[in-house]
């Protein structure tokens, strides 16, 4: 921070620009953002970037199975940048597609959980009474159990499948959002702008949606980034245990699990490269989340 800021510039500074400059103050956070952007781009454009469609079984050749990174196909000139797996699948392509599946599941469950949790949390703060008490008791009890256990119970009872995994991840996450939204809304509801809105005779729906909700968003976004990272890691763990996504839609976790059997014979690349992709994704999200927490937290504001 410079010692004596020029007031003329300060007046022109918009909240958005202040946010950007505060975020950019940390090089590590910028690195995280760049990494996240790269991961997202790779996932979104996977079908165009990937040299091979890893799930078109007709394109796979068992003769090319378990080739180390940098090998060329036994037939033709196909180049396997990161080697191949047990079925002769190009690992680089498989990772790109796996990234897509992992991110889709993580973000989808995050968005659903955020919507559900925020709605319930804000409602609890606004309505209060019995509803609030019961809801928060459920939240407390559920958060007393580790996510992996709750997810495992759900998968054990619901069965496998993309929809089931998303249900499990939403169930695990909603409570965090509900608690955050409620405490943020409790703080906001006594502020003057809320009184002003009530004084203007606005409808409850309008007050909650247009005034209360936008002001509870910053803490929810912070929790959201951390939770999406958790969701991706949890999905990978479930898939690794064979309890997550089906083999027709392999996520990074499943790719790692597939490579596990080859690990002991020294064929590290089948497991390690998907693992690095998973780590990069989670790390990027965590780095961005860490910085967002510092920037958006009013208590730490200078």
């Amino acid at each position, binding site marked *: 921070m410079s010692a004596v800021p020029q007031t003329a510039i300060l007046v022109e500074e918009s909240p958005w620009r202040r946010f950007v400059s505060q975020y950019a103050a940390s090089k590590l956070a910028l690195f995280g953002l760049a990494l996240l952007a790269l991961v997202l781009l790779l996932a979104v454009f996977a079908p165009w970037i990937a040299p091979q469609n890893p799930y078109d079984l007709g394109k796979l050749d068992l003769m090319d199975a378990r080739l180390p990174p940098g090998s060329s196909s036994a037939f033709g000139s196909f180049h396997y940048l990161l080697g191949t797996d047990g079925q002769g699948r190009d690992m680089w392509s498989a990772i790109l597609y796996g990234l897509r599946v992992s991110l889709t599941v993580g973000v989808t469950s995050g968005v659903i959980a955020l919507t559900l949790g925020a709605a319930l949390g804000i409602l609890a703060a606004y309505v209060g009474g019995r509803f609030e008490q019961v809801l928060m008791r459920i939240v407390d009890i559920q958060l007393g159990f580790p996510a992996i256990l709750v997810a495992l119970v759900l998968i054990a009872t619901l069965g496998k499948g993309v929809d089931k995994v998303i249900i499990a991840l939403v169930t695990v996450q909603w409570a965090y959002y509900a608690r955050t939204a409620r405490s943020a809304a409790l703080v906001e509801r006594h502020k003057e702008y809320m009184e002003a809105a009530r004084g203007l005779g606005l409808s409850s729906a309008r007050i909650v949606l247009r005034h209360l909700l936008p002001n509870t968003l910053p803490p929810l976004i912070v929790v959201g980034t951390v939770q999406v990272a958790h969701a991706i890691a949890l999905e990978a763990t479930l898939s690794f245990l064979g*309890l997550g996504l089906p083999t027709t839609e392999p996520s990074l*976790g499943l790719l*790692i699990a597939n490579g596990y059997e080859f690990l002991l014979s020294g064929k590290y690349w089948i497991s390690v490269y998907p*693992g690095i992709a998973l780590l990069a994704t989670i790390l990027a999200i965590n780095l961005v989340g860490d910085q967002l927490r510092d920037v958006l937290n009013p208590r730490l504001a200078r």
Partner: protein
Amino acid sequence: MLVYILRRLAQTLLVLLVTSVLVFVGIFMVGDPVEMLVNPQADQIERERTRVAFGLDKPMWVQYLLFLKNAAAGDLGNSFVYGRQALDVILERMPATLELAFLAMLIAIVIGIPLGLYAGLKPDSKVSKAIMAVSIVGFSLPTFWVGLLLIMLFAVQLGWLPSTGRGPTVDVLGLHLSIVHWDGLKHALLPALNLALFKLSLIIRLTRAQVRENVLLDYIKFARAKGLTRARVLGVHLLKNIMIPLVTVIGLELGSVIAFAIVTESIFAWPGMGKLVIDSIFQLDRPVVVAYLMITVVMFIVINLVVDILYSVLDPRVRLGSTPA
């Protein structure tokens, strides 16, 4: 205090009941265990006989009420696979899991607190920055992947430590423990390290944050002004005050270590209850899955309760019962 404990126990029963209904209803929707119980060539008559023998012919709610009645008497049903009491099957595996969990927690505490103290006292030094960087990576790494890396490095590349199984166990007061045996300890080291890593990162971060908050407070300044040695200020005054939140987190994390042992045990083929429940889910061994969940829920509630009580003992400012948690 007594009222508080009683209320918590009542709540425990309610949670148990809800969990049991959820699990019971849910588990009925996946697969037919009869298919797993009879041999594939069995005819319809034999299938029916098995169904009746295991009580699977009755409606779901009758089966549930029977389960409840038996559970009240401490009988959680017979395992389909092992043909013995599900509770016994799980309790047999429990020492292995607890042993792993305690060893992991010990590693996390013994390494984590000193590193966190250092990083908190000298936040700007290079070493502290390195410690924090490692802890953020430790936070981001999924447990199962760390397990794979550990196996690759220590078992495959270096060949120092075994990667699977439990090794020989020694009978200590009726419990089969492997950590008291050198070879057993070697088997336990990799899985425990794997399990410890996430908690280690957590303890480092928490200790650091606590230290940084506390060193600015007046009581530290006062202790210094009294001319106490640095060791005494840190070892007695500071440590005592940062212990309160640490004990809470360590206590609560013990439960999560037991739960996460499911993953570690599966990777390292450690014969604990976590691996048992994964196997049981695949084998549709309903009684074992239900019993495992019941036991874990009880364990969790007990741990949470003990932590809450401990918290009020350590910190007289906390009044039980009036807190919303």
